[in-house]
C-alpha cells in the first residue's frame, strides 16, 4: 500500500495513536521527574535508610528491562490482588524506569555545585530541605537540561511498550501491528510511525537546546 492510501484509510487512527503516545510520554515524564526528584533528595538526605532505599531503587530500575517490568505489572500484580488497567500498567512502567535515570542526571547536575555554596546555605541557617529547595535542586535541574531532553526522547521511545498490551486507541507502535493485521501495511506502516517518532524527537531536541541556552548557569 502507498503512503497516501494508508493515510486515507488509517489517518484518524494514526492521529489517535500519536495522541496516545504523546499522552503517555508527557504523563510518564512529569511523574518520572517528580519521582526522580524525590528519589534524589532521599539519596542525599542525612537519613541513612532513605539513602539506601533510594540507591536500591535506582540500581533496580536503571537495570530492569521495560518489557520485563511491564509483564510483572500485568501478570504478577493481580496475584497480589492489585489489578491495574492496561494503560496504568504501561504508565507505571514508563514512569518507574525513567525516574531512575532522572535521578542519575540530577545527581550529576549536583556535582556542578561547589561545596562552598552548601556551606554558605547552612551557615545562613537553612535546614536541609530549605537548602535543597533554594540552592541544590534549582542548580541541578538547570545543569541537566540536555540529559533531561534525551530522557524525554527515551521516555517516548519506551512508551512503545504500550504496543504489547491491548490499548484502545493504541500507540504509535501498536498501530503498526494493527494495520498489518487489517491490511497489507508492510514496511510503509512502520515508516510512518518511525517518521513521527523522529520528527517529535527532533523538535524536543531543538526546544531542549533553546531552554539549555536560556537557563545555563554562568560560572
Amino acid at each position: 500500500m502507498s503512503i497516501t492510501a494508508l493515510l486515507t484509510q488509517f489517518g484518524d487512527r494514526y492521529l489517535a495513536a500519536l495522541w496516545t503516545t504523546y499522552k503517555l510520554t508527557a504523563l510518564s515524564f512529569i511523574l518520572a521527574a517528580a519521582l526522580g526528584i524525590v528519589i534524589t533528595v532521599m539519596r542525599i538526605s542525612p537519613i541513612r535508610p532513605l539513602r539506601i532505599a533510594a540507591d536500591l531503587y535506582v540500581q533496580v530500575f536503571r537495570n530492569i528491562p521495560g518489557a520485563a517490568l511491564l509483564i510483572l505489572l500485568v501478570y504478577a500484580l493481580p496475584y497480589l490482588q492489585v489489578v491495574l488497567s492496561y494503560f496504568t500498567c504501561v504508565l507505571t512502567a514508563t514512569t518507574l524506569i525513567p525516574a531512575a535515570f532522572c535521578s542519575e542526571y540530577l545527581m550529576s547536575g549536583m556535582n556542578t555545585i561547589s561545596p562552598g555554596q552548601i556551606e554558605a546555605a547552612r551557615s545562613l541557617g537553612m535546614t536541609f530541605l530549605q537548602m535543597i529547595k533554594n540552592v541544590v535542586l534549582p542548580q541541578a535541574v538547570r545543569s541537566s537540561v540536555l540529559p533531561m531532553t534525551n530522557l524525554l526522547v527515551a521516555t517516548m521511545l519506551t512508551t512503545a511498550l504500550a504496543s504489547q498490551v491491548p490499548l484502545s486507541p493504541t500507540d504509535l507502535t501498536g498501530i503498526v501491528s494493527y494495520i498489518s493485521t487489517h491490511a497489507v501495511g508492510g514496511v510503509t506502516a512502520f515508516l510512518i510511525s518511525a517518521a513521527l517518532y523522529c520528527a517529535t524527537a527532533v523538535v524536543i531536541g531543538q526546544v531542549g537546546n533553546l531552554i539549555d541556552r536560556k537557563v545555563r548557569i554562568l560560572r
Partner: protein
Amino acid sequence: MEQGQKIVGKEPIIELRHINKHFGSVQVLKDVSLTVHKGEVVVIIGPSGSGKSTLCRTINRLETIDSGEIVIDGAVLPQEGKQLAALRSQIGMVFQSFNLFAHKRILDNVTVAPRDVLHTPKKQAEAEAMELLRRVGVGDQAHKVPAQLSGGQQQRVAIARALAMHPKAILFDEPTSALDPEMIGEVLDVMTELAREGMTMVIVTHEMAFAKAIADRVVFLEDGQIVEESTDPKAFFDEPATERARLFLRALEH
C-alpha cells in the same frame, strides 16, 4: 585607624569551652577556649595549618567537635536539626571563596535566607537587601549574577548576604585571600566600617596591618593551641609576649 572610644561589652556572644577536634588521628584543636564579647573584633592569626579555619568553622558547626562546648548568646549549640539551623542563622559567615549562589541574582542571593529562614515578606527583604548592597557599594549590581562580578564585589555581596540575617556576630575566614591585590582594600574597608558600627566579628586573616588596626583582641594560634592572646593589638604586634608569636611575626616580615 583610630578606634577612639569604641566600647566592647561584657556580654559574651560566642563562648568556646575546651574544644578538642581531630581529623583522623591528627588533633587540630587542643583544648581551645575563647570568649567573644558583644561588639568585639577578635582576629585569629597563626601559621598555615594551625587550625584557624577549623576553629572558625566549629563556631557554627560547619565542623563538628569531639569534645567541649560552644555557647552562642547563652544557648548551647546543639548537634543537629532545626535548632542548630536556628542558631546558625544568628551567626554570619564570610568565606575565602565568596560562595555566592551561582544561579541567583545578587539581590536574590541576599534575600533568599531572610525570606525562607526568617520569613521576612518579599518587599521588605528586597528593600533591606538593596539598602545593604548600597552600603557595601554594589547597589548597581543587584540584577546581575555572581559570575558577572569581580571577586571584590562578590565578597562584598557575601558580607551583605550575611548582614541581611541580622546576625549577632560574623565569622570571616580569610575573606581577602582569594582576591587580586587591588581588590583587597575595598573589602577590608567594608569590614572596618562594620567594626566601627559595633558588629561582633571573628576574623581569620593574614593581613597583619589590617589586623593590628581592627582588632580589639588578637589570638595567636599554633598547632591547634592558643599560644598567645592579647587585648592590646598594638603591643602584641610590636612586641609579642611569647617567643613563638615573635618568630611567626618576624617570619612574615621577610
